[in-house]
């Protein structure tokens, strides 16, 4: 039997990797991938707790997170496409006009 803390530890590790990725990467698509990684890290924690508690709620939450991830990917990639069309670049540091 694998203890719960192992799963949670793995989840924490993956999350941190994702966060670091968002920090250091400048390619918009790679940043998206890192966000997906973070979402999956959270999913792992949810599924693990769901299994250990014998409660279906956590898995349902994962289900919903997946739909949200799908929606986010669709919209996010559409934004990336339209930004690319305007800027000819995927560098997020290029897209900083939101700054005052």
């Amino acid at each position: 039997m694998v203890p719960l803390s192992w799963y949670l530890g793995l989840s924490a590790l993956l999350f941190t990797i994702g966060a670091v990725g968002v920090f250091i990467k400048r390619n918009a698509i790679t940043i998206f991938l890192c966000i997906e990684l973070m979402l999956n890290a959270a999913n792992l924690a949810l599924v693990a707790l769901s299994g250990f508690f014998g409660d279906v709620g956590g898995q349902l939450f994962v289900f919903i997170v997946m739909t949200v991830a799908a929606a986010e990917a669709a919209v996010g990639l559409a934004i990336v496409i339209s930004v690319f069309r305007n800027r000819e670049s995927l560098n997020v540091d290029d897209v900083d006009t939101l700054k005052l």
Partner: protein
Amino acid sequence: MEQTLFIIFAVIAVASALNILIQRNPLYSALSLIVTLASLSALYLTLHAQFIAAIQVVVYAGAIMVLFVFVIMLLNEPKDVPHIEKHKWLRYLAIPFAGLLIAEMFYALPLDKQIAFPSIPAEQADTAVGTTWNIGTALFTDYLLPFEVTSVLILMAVVGAMVLARREGD
């Protein structure tokens, strides 16, 4: 046995996750992420979450990641763009932040010893929660409203994606 499986897939997941960061080409990063997702799917099986494991492969690795790969292929970033990097110092914040995050989380992990889990008999563990039956029943009874709201969210995402990605004048 389970521990062995866990360690194998955990190592694969972490390694491929790190590979996402290491690769410069986003296409390789995406493929690397698919490996991570697949190994996570295997871990879900060890947690008796069969349904989630299946859609992890089908929806996540299959559909969403295909979308990513598709977009990466489509955009094909030119190689000669000037190398812009603003506020480079922020990059180095990643190290202390990541360290603190790991430290905090691993500090919290031993707290699971204090939790009293319900004991599920080994023979029922397979069918206790993670089957399609269980998930479906819960989804269409207690969680019907969130489910329906999710469908609205997806509809909005579809419309939003079309509006955003459309060319001007189409």
